[in-house]
């Protein structure tokens, strides 16, 4: 049981694959779902995939700027989510739904 050595045998490409897969799952959700809250969750998932990728690069390259970038992504995502959910609640108060397809009042 040598976890340190286990960590060292993970290659960077594994992390890239993983976060690409997560990103694409999130993207799929954004394209497929239409409940606004679920859409927002899928976007958060995509952001997390990005964060994972940044962290992997940063810690493999021994460069802290990637991790700081992730820090900023996280905090900004929080601000974004806060504003987004405020908008959603406002919309819900007017329409009683968060289904995005309801938004067909505006033609595409």
């Amino acid at each position, binding site marked *: 049981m040598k976890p340190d050595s286990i960590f060292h045998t993970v290659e960077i490409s594994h992390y890239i694959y993983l976060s690409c897969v997560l990103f694409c799952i999130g993207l799929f959700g954004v394209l497929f779902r239409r409940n606004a809250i679920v859409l*927002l969750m899928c976007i958060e998932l995509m*952001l997390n995939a990005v964060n994972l990728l940044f962290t992997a690069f940063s810690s493999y390259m021994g*460069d802290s*700027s*990637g991790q700081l970038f992730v820090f900023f*992504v996280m905090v900004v995502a929080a*601000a*974004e989510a806060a*504003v*987004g959910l405020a908008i959603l609640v406002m919309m819900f108060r007017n329409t009683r739904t968060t289904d995005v397809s309801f938004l067909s009042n505006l033609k595409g």
Partner: protein
Amino acid sequence: MRSLLLIFLGAIAILFAGLGKKEIRMLPWAIALLLGALVFIPMDWIANEQPDWVNHIVPYFMMVFDRSALAFMAVIIIAAMLVLGLFGQREITGSDQLGLILFSLCGALILCSFTHMVMLFLGIEALSIPLFVLAGSRKKDLRSNEAAIKYFLMGAFSTAIFLMGCAFVYGGTGTLDLSVMQRVIPGSAAMGGMTGLAKTGVVLLMTGLCFKIAAVPFHFWSPDVYEGSPNRTTLFMATVVKIASFSAFFRLFNFAFSSPLAHGNWSFVLAILAAATILVGNIGALAQRNLKRTMAYSSIAHAGYMLLAILANPLESFWALIVYSLAYAGSSAVVFYILNKVQEKKGNTEFESFNGFGRANRWLGILLILALFSMAGIPVTAGFAGKFLLFSAAFTGFKWLVIVALLGSAISIAYYFRVFRHAFLTEADGDIIKPEWQDSVFLAIAATVLLLIGIWPALITGLQLFELH
């Protein structure tokens, strides 16, 4: 720097000054603030001794206020002044909206001056987050709500894609600093240009930014959002946000990814996007029956033209982009002002509402013609100067694209003419609109900008920008 600080502090001051009061006129203060910020720019311009920004980045600052940044900042502040000046009298109810606009403006100014991906990202967010709110600022209006939610979802989604691009570029180059990136990104010749990671990253970055500027095929959100948002916010999005995004696009792609090897990797994709944007924007605009939607599509088309500047040699295209942005901001402001006034009278922005407008209001009619001419790119207006400069800058590298752009401009004349026809050639009696004196001042400024640059573009292009490289 000083302008940015001034606007930020002013925004906070305005927020707090308006607290707890029902009716307070903060608008003059906001405009004074912008004027103050604008005054700083020539001062900085003169003081600016940096010949080459790459080697003179203030340590730890992540922003550099070189002359190219200052030029964009000036355009953006002028555009913001037009937005506030022309739409301030009725629509702004609280100081919170004004504060949000100013915060957003801070983000826009950062997009002119970043030298680091973190600043680019934060700038985009600082620009967008207040706008999500502003788009939905008419809380009871369903369309405004929907515009807000759409704009928000598209914004968040494009941010995710943009960030993925950042991550790939970071993996491919090992840095987030633009000046380092510029050195690293070509890769070694043995590896054949950029690494695969960096290539994918650049394409993803491009995609993310194309969402922001509403380039085809990532434009689908913009007509809805433009139509649903309050008019002032729409104008802000169409001018300030678009110009700031282009500034970011220009800075990122022409500084960080500008080496010949790298350029070849992304320029072709971008050229195709530009061509598609021009065609889709113009053809889409033809099909509309509503002036606000037409303007939305025409703004997509304008984004297409402006993409030429990013493709072309930055030394030539920089001033072209500035002139074009100014022309675009000025003419949009005029058209949106008239559109807003008509909407107040008639309740909608269908073309029919404009019938007889030009006969009823002589001066506004002339202004409308001027603005439309400028948008269509007819000589002696700023729009013509901008288009001419843009097309000639891009002509050396992308002849076919310039031909597409000319074709697009030809199409655009058709729908601009339709506005003209409704406003001047129909028999109906239009409503008489009396602009308040403050409005007249700003309309006059817009008109002056359009005419002056149209007649004498060297006023701007003659400015000495130090060597970009």
